[in-house]
């Protein structure tokens, strides 16, 4: 979707605030928001792509106003409601309703490292032929899907060169919507800064973007 989360190349976002000796969390609730997200992900009801998309659909004005972990909690609540883990009434009251779903077995503290440490790899060991070769010229497709996509707006329609083939991965654009993993090759594609941003960009500079077969066409 052409959302405000897709902000590469935008102006007007202000200066970068580089905090010295920054703590990992700025308040205890942030650590809780982080832990909740990881623990709820362990139910296996959704995937990382759906989880990213849940934050992208936060209305633009809210998205820009919210802090990082506010977005995490907002996205998480939507996923939990959508997948029947909580009701909005439970979220509002902070109390579980009678018969609310419970994880079995419950995720106990001693199981956290074992369960969450392994993550959920998105590379796939399947024989899918690559559509492009290293060194080949490609064009990022000029597409504007209304759903989740990992093809940033600033690259669409632009010419690049395949710099590296990373192998086969799940395709987030379908996986985020539970429309299948559609495993395919992911490439690091080199785009000259001038191709993306025009004559004022550095002559030698480049942006490398990881893109899937379905994001690219022959140039």
């Amino acid at each position: 979707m052409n959302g405000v989360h897709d902000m590469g190349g935008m102006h007007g976002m202000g200066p970068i605030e580089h905090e010295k000796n920054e703590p990992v969390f700025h308040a205890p609730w942030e650590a809780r928001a982080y832990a909740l997200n990881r623990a709820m992900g362990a139910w296996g009801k959704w995937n990382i792509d759906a989880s990213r998309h849940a934050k992208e659909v936060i209305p633009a004005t809210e998205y820009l106003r919210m802090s990082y972990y506010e977005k995490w909690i907002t996205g998480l609540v939507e996923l939990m409601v959508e997948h029947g883990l909580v009701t909005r009434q439970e979220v509002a009251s902070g109390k579980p309703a009678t018969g609310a779903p419970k994880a079995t077995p419950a995720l106990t503290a001693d199981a956290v490292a074992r369960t969450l440490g392994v993550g959920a790899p998105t590379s796939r060991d399947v024989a899918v032929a690559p559509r492009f070769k290293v060194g080949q010229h490609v064009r990022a497709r000029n597409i504007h899907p209304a759903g989740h996509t990992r093809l940033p707006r600033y690259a669409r329609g632009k010419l690049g060169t395949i710099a590296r083939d990373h192998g086969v991965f799940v395709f987030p654009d379908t996986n985020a919507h539970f429309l299948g993993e559609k495993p395919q090759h992911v490439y690091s594609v080199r785009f000259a800064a001038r191709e993306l941003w025009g004559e004022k960009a550095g002559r030698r500079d480049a942006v490398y973007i990881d893109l899937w077969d379905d994001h690219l066409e022959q140039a």
Partner: protein
Amino acid sequence: MVVVENGPKLHNIVVCTLCSCYPWPVLGLPPVWYKSAPYRSRAVIDPRGVLREFGLELAEDVEIRVWDSTAEVRYLVLPERPAGTEKMSEEELAALVSRDAMVGVAKVTAPQTGGKA
């Protein structure tokens, strides 16, 4: 994980314009600035300006490569070894490397006191 190496004429910088992808297993959770709109929006269009805000001025003939982490591949910058560190041990060198240098918004500098080791 892909490690990209800096050199005298090449500087790498990592960003995630779409969300906040970052090499967690190595660097831990990302700092707020990395996840913020100003960094995410400008790193790709104005890397020199962004680096200047971090106090790093690069010469015009240095190629800048910006790595936009749009997939599950994570990028880590291998900083350029600073001059005057030839006699330092691996441990001493490791102590000079900062998180910011591995994201690509800082260089690694030799200790001012030089030769103390």
